[in-house]
C-alpha cells in the first residue's frame, strides 16, 4: 500500500462530444513519487481528462499507460483495481455512513454469510491514518465531520484500495487556507512515500507551492509545461493564452452615508437552525464590503434575506433608512437594490428565454417596455442591442436563448440587467464563480465602477483571492455569525483563521506565530503588490 510505485502516461488522449473536442491529443507523464499539477481554466478540459482516466468516459483516441502497459478502464472499478484513486471535488462520501463504512464501501471485508466485518474496516482506516499521521475517528458519522476531514476520508478511501496514483480534483475549492495547508502537507508525505499525485487546479499559488512539475492545458490542448519556479504571470498567461493583468485597478474607497443597515438579523432554515444568527452589518455608499467565509456558513441566506427571498425570523434591514422587512422583492428592486445570484444559470437567467427578454425581466411589466399589457418588442430589441455592446456579451444575436451562452456571457447578461436600474445597493453572490479570466476581469471592473458611482456594494464570495482583490472592508462569517469585520488589506492567513471561527485578535496572534505555506508566498515575491485575480475562480464546473 502506498509503497508501490507507478508511472502514469497519457498518450494522445482525445475526447469529443459531438463537434466539440474537449481533449485534443493530450500527452502527460506522471513519474512515480511526483506531484504533477494539471493547470487550466474552467472549461479547459481538465474534468473530461480526469473522467477518461477514471474510466467514466472512453477516449476517442489515444491510450493510457501504467508502467508502460496500455490499459483500458470500463468503469471506476477497473481504474481503482489498476491503482488509480480519485478524490472528487464534490466528495463521494455517504453522509449518513461512518468513516469506516465509507472507506469499506465497494470492497467490504466480510465475516461470512455476507455480514460486514466492521472491526476489519475500522482497522483499515486506522492503519492508513496511522501511516500518514492523520487523525480520523473510524466511527464518526461523515456528515458530522468538517470538510477538511471529509477530504482526508476520501484520501484514506483511495489509499485503502492500494492507490498508487492519486488524482485530486480541485481539492482546495472547499477548504480554508489552514486546511489547504494541511492538505499540502499530506500531499508531500504521500509523494515521499512513493505515491504519484495528479493535482488538478486553476489556482496558481497552490501549484507553485506544491507541484514538482506543471502541465498547462487550454481549450483541450496541452499548451506547455513549466517548473514550479516559473513566475505567476508566466503561468497565468500560459493558462489564459494572453498577457493578463494580475489585479483590479481601483482607487481607495470614499465611503459616504450608510446605505444598507443590517441589525441583529436572524434567518432560520426549515429545521429551525439559525443559519444567519444575529448579524449586524453596515454598508456605506461607495464602498465594497465582502462577505467572506467557507461555503455554507450563512452568506447565501444573508444575501437572500436582503433581497427578500428568505424571511428573517428576527432583526431588521434598512435601505437608506427605509425598513425593508415588510417589502416585497419587487419593492426592494424599485428601491434601488441590484442582485446577482449565486447560481446564474438557474437563478440569474431564464435559460429558455432570449437574451433580450432576460435583459428586462425586472422592468418588462411597466412602461417603457410594455404598455397596457403589451410588450414593446422593438424597444426590447433596441435595449438589448445596446446592452450587449456595453457589457461585451459575446453572442451571435440578441434572440439567442440565454441557455446557449457561456457562463461568463450569462453573467454579463445578469450584470447588464441589474445595472440598468439606478442602484443604491448591489449585492453580488459569487460573481465570478466558474468564469474565465477575461470575464472575471470584466466583472470585477464593472463592480468597481459601480462602487465609484457611489453605489454600496456587497460581494459574497468564498474565494479569498476575490475578496482580497475587491473588498474595502471584509466581514467574515462562520456558522451564521459575523466573526469580525476587517479592512480590505488584511493578511489572508488571518482571514483564513477567521473563516474557521477564530476571533480576530487570536487569528492575528496565531498568524504571527505561524504562516501557512500559501500565506508565506505572499511575503516571498516582493514583485506582486496587487493580488492576482485569476486565481479567483472556483469550484463549480460544467453543470
Amino acid at each position, binding site marked *: 500500500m502506498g509503497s508501490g510505485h507507478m508511472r502514469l502516461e497519457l498518450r494522445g488522449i482525445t475526447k469529443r462530444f459531438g463537434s466539440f473536442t474537449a481533449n485534443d491529443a493530450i500527452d502527460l507523464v506522471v513519474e512515480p513519487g511526483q506531484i504533477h499539477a494539471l493547470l487550466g481554466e474552467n472549461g479547459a478540459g481538465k474534468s473530461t481528462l480526469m473522467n477518461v482516466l477514471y474510466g467514466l468516459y472512453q477516449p476517442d483516441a489515444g491510450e493510457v499507460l501504467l508502467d508502460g502497459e496500455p490499459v483500458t478502464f470500463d468503469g471506476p*472499478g477497473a481504474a481503482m483495481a489498476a491503482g488509480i484513486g480519485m478524490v*472528487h471535488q*464534490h*466528495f463521494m*462520501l455517504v453522509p449518513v455512513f461512518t468513516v469506516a*463504512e465509507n472507506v469499506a*464501501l465497494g470492497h467490504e471485508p466480510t465475516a461470512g454469510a455476507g455480514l460486514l466485518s466492521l472491526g476489519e474496516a475500522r482497522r483499515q482506516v486506522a492503519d492508513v491514518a496511522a501511516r500518514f499521521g492523520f487523525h480520523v475517528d473510524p466511527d464518526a458519522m461523515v456528515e458530522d465531520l468538517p470538510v477538511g476531514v471529509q477530504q482526508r476520508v476520501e484520501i484514506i478511501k483511495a489509499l485503502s484500495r492500494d492507490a498508487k496514483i492519486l488524482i485530486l480534483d480541485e481539492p482546495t475549492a472547499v477548504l480554508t487556507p489552514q486546511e489547504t495547508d494541511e492538505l499540502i502537507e499530506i500531499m508531500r508525505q504521500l509523494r515521499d512515500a512513493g505515491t504519484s499525485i495528479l493535482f488538478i487546479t486553476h489556482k496558481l499559488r497552490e501549484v507553485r507551492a506544491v507541484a514538482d512539475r506543471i502541465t498547462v492545458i487550454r481549450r483541450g490542448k496541452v499548451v506547455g509545461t513549466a517548473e514550479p519556479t516559473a513566475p505567476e504571470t508566466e503561468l497565468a498567461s500560459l493558462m489564459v493564452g494572453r498577457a493578463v493583468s494580475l489585479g483590479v485597478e481601483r482607487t481607495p474607497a470614499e465611503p459616504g452615508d450608510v446605505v444598507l443597515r443590517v441589525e441583529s438579523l436572524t434567518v432560520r432554515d426549515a429545521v429551525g437552525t439559525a443559519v444567519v444568527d444575529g448579524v449586524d452589518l453596515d454598508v456605506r455608499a461607495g464602498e465594497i464590503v465582502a462577505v467572506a467565509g467557507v461555503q455554507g456558513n450563512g452568506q447565501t441566506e444573508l444575501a437572500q434575506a436582503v433581497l427578500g427571498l428568505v424571511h428573517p425570523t428576527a432583526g431588521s434591514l434598512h435601505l437608506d433608512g427605509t425598513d425593508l422587512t415588510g417589502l416585497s422583492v419587487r419593492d426592494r428592486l424599485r428601491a434601488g437594490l441590484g442582485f446577482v445570484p449565486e447560481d446564474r444559470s438557474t437563478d440569474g437567467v431564464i435559460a429558455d428565454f432570449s437574451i433580450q427578454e432576460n435583459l428586462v425581466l425586472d422592468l418588462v411589466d411597466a412602461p417603457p417596455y410594455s404598455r397596457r399589457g403589451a410588450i414593446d418588442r422593438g424597444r426590447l430589441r433596441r435595449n438589448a442591442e445596446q446592452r450587449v455592446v456595453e457589457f461585451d456579451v459575446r453572442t451571435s444575436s440578441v434572440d439567442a436563448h440565454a441557455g446557449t451562452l457561456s457562463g461568463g456571457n450569462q453573467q454579463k447578461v445578469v450584470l447588464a440587467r441589474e445595472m440598468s436600474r439606478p442602484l443604491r445597493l448591489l449585492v453580488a453572490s459569487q460573481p465570478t464563480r466558474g468564469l474565465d479570466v477575461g470575464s472575471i476581469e470584466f466583472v470585477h471592473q464593472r463592480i468597481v465602477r459601480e462602487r465609484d458611482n457611489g453605489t454600496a456594494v456587497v460581494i459574497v464570495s468564498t474565494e479569498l483571492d476575490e475578496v482580497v482583490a475587491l473588498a474595502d472592508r471584509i466581514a467574515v462569517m462562520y456558522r451564521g455569525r459575523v466573526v469580525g469585520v476587517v479592512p480590505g488589506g488584511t493578511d489572508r492567513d488571518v482571514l483564513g483563521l477567521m473563516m474557521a471561527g477564530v476571533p480576530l485578535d487570536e487569528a492575528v496572534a496565531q498568524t504571527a506565530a505561524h504562516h501557512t505555506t500559501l500565506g508565506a508566498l505572499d511575503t516571498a515575491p516582493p514583485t506582486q503588490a496587487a493580488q492576482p485575480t485569476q486565481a479567483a475562480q472556483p469550484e463549480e464546473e460544467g453543470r
Partner: protein
Amino acid sequence: MSLATPVTENAPAPDDAGRLRPTWRGPIAYAVIALVALLAMPLRTPDGSTRFRLSTETDFAQIPTFEVPAAPTVWVLVLLAVALAALAAWWTRQGRRTGLWLPVVFGVALLLAFLTFVGAGRSAVIPLTSVATGTLFLATPLIFGALSGVVCERVGIVNIAIEGQLLAGAFIAAVVGSLTASAYMGLVAAPVAGALVGMLLVFFAVRYHVNQIIVGVVLNVLVVGLTSFLFSTVLAEDPGTWNQRQALPVLPIPVLSQIPVIGPILFRQTLLVYLMYVIVVALQVYLFRSRWGLRLRAVGEHPKAADTVGIDVNRTRVRNTILGSAIAGLGGAFFTVASGLAFGKEMTGGRGFIALAAMILGRWSPKGAVAAALLFGFADNLRTVLGTIGSSVPPQLLLMTPYIVTILAVAGFAGRVRAPAAEGIPYVK
C-alpha cells in the same frame, strides 16, 4: 444530483448548529399525548375493576383470569406515560436521543390504560391474548408491505405500488392455490406476482426515468383493473376451478406454542407468519450489517459515491426493488390463502398505503416498521374488542388515531425522520 451535501457543516461544535441535536418536537408530542390521556382517562374511570384473561386452554400453566382495580391501574399507567414524556424532555435537554424503546413503552402503557379504562366496571373479560393475536393478524399484511417499502426506498426507489403488489399477490395466491388445490402453491406464487409488478415499476422508473410516484399510482390502478376484470369474467364464471377457498393450516410449533401468553400469540400461526418473522429479523440484520445492505443503502443515499467505488447503481436498484416487491407480493397471500378466503375485488382495501405510512412512522427501518404496523393493527383490532366488551367509545374515533400519529411523525414530531437522500431520483451518469 451532484449537490455536495457534506459541504454544509464546517466544524461541529457540540454547543452549536442544532442540526445534530434531537429536536424538541418529540418531547412536546409525548407531553401533549400524555396530557390528553391524563385528562381523558383516570378521573373518568368508572369505579370497579377490569378483568383480563391471559392464558388459553392449551398452555403449560394456566394463569387465572385476573382483576385489576381500574382507577388505580389507569392512574399508574398514565403517570408512567407522563414520566416517559418528562424523561424524553430531560434527555433532549441533555442532547441525548431517545431510543426506539421509549415510544414503544409509551404506546403500550397508554394502550393498556385505555383497555383498563374501557373495561372498568364491566362484567366482560378482556381477552388480552386474543387482542394481541388479532393485532398481529391484522398487522401481517402491513408488516409485509412496510418491509417492502423499506427495501425499495432504502435503495432509492419510491414504491407506491405496494397496494398493487399486495393485491396481485392475493389474486395469484388464490388462483394458483385453487388450481393446484394447494394453499402452499398459492403461497409460492404470491411473491412472483409482486415481483412482476416490481419489474414494471423499475422498468419505467430506472430505464426511462419516469416519475416513480406516477408509475406506482398507475400500477396500482392497473392491478386493480386487471384483477377486477379477471375476477368478474374468469373467476366468477367458474369459481370452483379458479377461486376455490384454500387455507394455510395453522402450524403450532411444539413446546413454544404452549408457553403461556406469548405461545398462542406468536407460535400458533401459519407458515406465512413464520416467514414474516424470518424476513423481519433477516432484513433488520442484513440491511445494517451486511455488504448487501451497505451497498443498498449507499445507492439510496448517494448513488454517485456508490458508482465511483464500482457499484452498479441501477442494477442494485432493479434487483432490490424486485426483491422488495416480492416481499409485498408474499404479503398479499395473507388476504386469500392465509386467511382461508377466496379472492374478492379490491380486497386489500388500501392496506398498501397504510403500510407506507407504517414504513415512514418506523423511520425506514424494519423493526420500526413492525412496531408501527402493530400499532395500526391494534387500532384496527380495537373495533372488534370494543364490540365484544360493549364499550360506548366510538370505534371510528380510535381507528383514526394511528393516522394522526403518522401525520405527527411525518411532520417531525417523532424525532428526526429522514428519508434516504436519493429516493425517487433516477440515476443518470
